[in-house]
């Protein structure tokens, strides 16, 4: 689905990613773990196409297409979704209006007709139920006055509505209490299919108790320094990041 080759990127003259190699196939769940400042969020932003990040080398191939020339919205139309670590407030724009616009703009981008209002409503109802959200969510302003948990749930709700091929969950567990974590993870698990993939970016292992990864990668200092199965996450939890730091000093 996605092949990242020797990806290098910088922000304001500072090299952050120093040659990332990663391949994710349909149906797989990958987790990227790493200490603060290792480049985790940079990687997710670069895949999503954020302008502030300058790609200085390497390539990202998404379903046979070079992503580098595409605008963020075009990447979204192709099925890339990023669950933000810090979801943004958009005052006065309701969740339902926002998601309706997002779905229909994506469909337009793919040359499809707008979704029928009835279908849209049914889908919203289904997905709010999936995430155990009250229907009143839909008429609230996007993320305005939302608690940390509500914001993250709203991200996964949008993921559920947009049905992306590749979902990147950037620190989705941060700011969640244990109940919210369970609900969010449960939502993600129910959305897993053979033809989509999830990339979980996290600092802690606890989210991986709920969303079980097929592969775990450790990012340190702009490079993937270790890969393995889910036992690697447990080992990391036990030994701490100092273990990695010592090995790569």
């Amino acid at each position, binding site marked *: 689905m996605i092949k990242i080759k020797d990806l290098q990127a910088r922000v304001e003259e500072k090299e952050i990613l120093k040659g990332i190699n990663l391949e994710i196939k349909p149906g797989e769940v990958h987790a990227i773990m790493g200490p603060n400042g290792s480049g985790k969020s940079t990687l997710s932003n670069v895949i999503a*196409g954020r302008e502030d990040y300058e790609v200085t080398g390497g390539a990202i191939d998404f379903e046979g297409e070079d992503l580098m020339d595409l*605008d963020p*919205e075009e*990447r979204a139309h192709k099925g890339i979704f990023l669950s933000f670590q810090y979801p943004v407030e*958009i*005052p*006065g724009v309701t969740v339902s209006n*926002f998601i309706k616009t997002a779905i229909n703009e994506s469909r337009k*981008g793919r040359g499809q007709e707008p979704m029928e209002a009835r279908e849209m409503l049914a889908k919203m109802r289904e997905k709010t139920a999936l995430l155990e959200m009250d229907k009143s969510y839909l008429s609230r302003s996007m993320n305005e006055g939302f608690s940390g948990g509500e914001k993250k749930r709203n991200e996964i709700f949008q993921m559920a509505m947009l049905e992306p091929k590749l979902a990147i969950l950037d620190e989705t567990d941060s700011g969640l209490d244990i109940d919210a974590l369970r609900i969010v993870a449960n939502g993600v698990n129910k959305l897993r299919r053979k033809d989509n993939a999830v990339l979980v970016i996290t600092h802690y292992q606890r989210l991986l108790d709920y969303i079980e990864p097929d592969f775990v990668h450790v990012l340190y200092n702009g490079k993937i320094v270790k890969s393995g199965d889910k036992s690697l996450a447990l080992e990391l939890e036990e030994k701490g990041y100092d273990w990695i730091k010592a090995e790569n000093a």
Partner: protein
Amino acid sequence: MSDEILDEITGSEYKYGFTTDIESDTVPPGLNEDVIRMISAKKNEPEWMLEWRLDAFRTWLEMTEPEWHNVTYEKPDFQAVSYYSAPKQKKTLDSLDEVDPELLKTFEKLGISLDEQKRLSGVAMDVVVDSVSVATTFKATLAEKGIIFCSMSEAIQEHPELVRKHLGTVVPKRDNFYAALNSAVFTDGSFCYIPKGVRCPMELSTYFRINEAGTGQFERTLLVADEGSYVSYLEGCTAPQRDENQLHAAVVELVAMDDAEIKYSTVQNWYPGDAQGKGGVFNFVTKRGICERNAKISWTQVETGSAVTWKYPSCILKGDNSIGEFYSVAVTNKYQQADTGTKMIHLGKNTKSTIISKGISAGHSHNSYRGLVRVGARAENARNFSQCDSLLMGDQCGAHTFPYIEAQHPTAQIEHEATTSKIGEDQLFYCNQRGIGTEEAIALIVNGYCKEVLNQLPMEFAVEAQKLLEVSLEGSVG
């Protein structure tokens, strides 16, 4: 966000910039008592009206143009303006079939259909081109309820007692420089009277259009809601694209008698000038309403046009328990300048006012909110809430807020909130990531920001206003 994108999305063209080739009856430029006599004679006005105008003119001569506002422009040469221009055609029209076909085409381009469509949608409309009213629809239906809705010229002929009783009572002739000028030379506008206890069954609407070059538009609107009545009134404005500045100095007076309610909505889209700031309409407008006991006046405006705007729709809350509201969205782009806001004058007891102002500045424009809340010595328990928000797009524009508060009664409760924000790259990227392109994202964010105001507009108008906001701030929409 790069400057390129910003230029692209803020650099839209004005789509109402066409002129219509209609033969016009235009008086030569210049202003003196003879010109005023000529205008009055052309309109076959009674003697009292002429005297009223001449008195205003003499007052005006002694006044000077105001300079306290936060806008800069080359002062108009009042002797270079033509004070009367009318599409040439015979007297009053009995039906729309008699309207000049070129004029009808103009309305089509403006997206106004004067016939069936409007009848179906239930909006009665008066259309003013340059100086005169060319068509008023639905007159008969309204007459059944005793509602008078006609052009000001016609009102002076047909209902002189009402006009004479109320004209200049809310905005006196000597109120300010432009009000005095308007009083001297106003040529048309709309007049509306809602009888006691009548709830006007449809939206009343006036569409203003400046067509002729070098003319000023000085319309005068007078709206009287008698005791216990209700009316919702809409006003829309456009003008052709011209290199020189056109002058628009209107006066609107609202009278809400005991227990009456007036809702007055404006979508102003006069030509704003080109990308370099050349041309555009100077919009110097005095709008004011007076509320008697338990009455309510609500002003809603969406201002996207004009090179320079100077406008403060205000409420005099004279009667006890009266309510004044002001909801405003003002967008400035390119080199536009707007100095707009409201005055809420609390005189009666238990009077309440609400001010919600949303300014949006883009390009090299300047957008100022100026508002006065005054609580008089008798106004026990007066309450005001003001919220003034500014949204900036890019780093070449300016937003300013000038709130004035004068409270002469110890029980007054006045709240003022103000915020300034920018459309952030974070917000744009978030929308982009969800598949929403930058232009649509800005439209979405701006509409969300203005929602409290747009919600006040009648449905049909709200859609129009939303589109207008998008056009004003975006690339090639429309």
